[in-house]
């Protein structure tokens, strides 16, 4: 699972896809996940990292991550 290469993410969670001209707004944790993906981290590693940092149980996190990745795919932000 990789983020498309030329996507730009700003400090305050603003995301721009130059391929399509689409802009998005991320919440802080969304931004964190995308930055990790951009750096090439695996989804498993990212989950582990979030589990350590946030007050959340594994099931909720997995559900939410799954959903988040689906929507990233839907917006055409991921490389297959």
């Amino acid at each position: 699972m990789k983020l498309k290469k030329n996507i730009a993410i700003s400090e305050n969670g603003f995301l721009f896809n130059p391929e399509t001209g689409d802009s998005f707004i991320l919440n802080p944790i969304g931004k964190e996940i995308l930055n990790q993906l951009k750096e090439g981290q695996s989804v498993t590693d990212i989950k582990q990292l979030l589990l350590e940092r946030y007050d959340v149980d594994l099931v909720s996190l997995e559900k939410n991550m799954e959903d988040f990745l689906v929507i990233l795919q839907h917006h055409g932000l991921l490389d297959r």
Partner: protein
Amino acid sequence: MKKLDYERPIINKVNAGMPDKFGMSTRVPVISHIEGVAITDIMKQFGSPIYVISEPCIRETFQQAQKAFLSRYPRVQFAWSYKTNYLNAVCKIFHSEGAWAEVVSGFEYTKAIENGIPGNQIIFNGPDKSREDLERAIKDGAMIHLDSLDEFYYLGELAHKLDKKANVGLRINLDAGIYPKWDRFGFNLENGEAWNVLNRVMLHEYMVLLGLHTHMGTYITSVNAYAVATRKMADLTNRLFRKYKYELKYLDLGGGFASKNTLKGAYLPGSDTCPSFDDYAEAITSVLLDSELPPERLPLLILESGRALVDDSGFMLGSVLANKRLADGRRATVIDIGVNMLFTSFWYDHEVLPTQLKSEQTENTTIYGPLCMNIDVIREAVQFPLLQRGDAVVIPRIGAYNMTQWMQFIKLRPPVLLIDTDKQIHLIRKKETNEQFNAMENVPEHLKG
């Protein structure tokens, strides 16, 4: 090390040049308490879903409405529209504030009597009055509002047999410049039907004409329509006086005042567009005061306002069952409140609000009820916070028509609570039970066993 507060990750597309209709801000309001009582406490004790009614809110709203009219016109009487909410506790609050009863069936009539309202303070409307209903109403001296010529003849016969005069009002439908025209109820003014029937009532040996009634429709935001209707009713009152030297006791302008809910498809929220009681009162009373009616003959002004008096006092509490992603990428949240409990979600874009917010983040979400039916949509496409399974939601402004038009479908009807002026909680309608439900049924012998 203490862990950070968690919220689920989201990404929202920015539609440049297409801010939503109220600008870019999508701050979600929160309702955590009802009349000072924490919603979490209520749900812990009584479960979910559940209706909650605020007694102080009913009283304040009623007093506001009453003041708006009484400060402009000397003789005003509200009659509580039972169909809007006929839970006895709710009716009793209105009656204790001085409201009479407006009923449209034998069932409602009986409720009004059992709630302590004397027959001569009951307005009996509607097209469906049975023989027993009419006989009782004649004997009680209730105000029987005729809906059709058939009913006029039938009532005449019954009153004759009982040898007692019936107190009669005439339901009139008229053109006040609004659409739809509710011309299926009562007698039409413009084509002369109403005048014709008025004359028949005046000449009837067993009828006493007390007043005229119109109810133009519901959720009427045009105060001018009330001015037009009032003028037409006042003219008719004068015409009657000119011909018979007869003074009508009352003019009943019905209900129809809008509540602050937002109609589906409306561009602006109802809280911005809904006229105030003062606006309605000004329109109606200034026509009456400016009319040909001399001060000593000013009729009692009766109002049958329903939704505007009770909508704000009702809250529905529920919880999130699941979050889903639809095939086209939209977010869906399923809650345990369905359209069977919230009939008004067919007319209104109800607000669905959280009881607490962990962050300001929202996502475009469609909110579904729990029924296995496609029509079970509580709210289409709202900016909704990131709630998780089990989180509570509140739907405010549901006091009108939901606790009467609720349907028993798939599940039993939820209980209803009342919070009184001392913040005490009362269970005013119990949760329905399987036993009660089954007690109504009968399985034929050959299917038993």
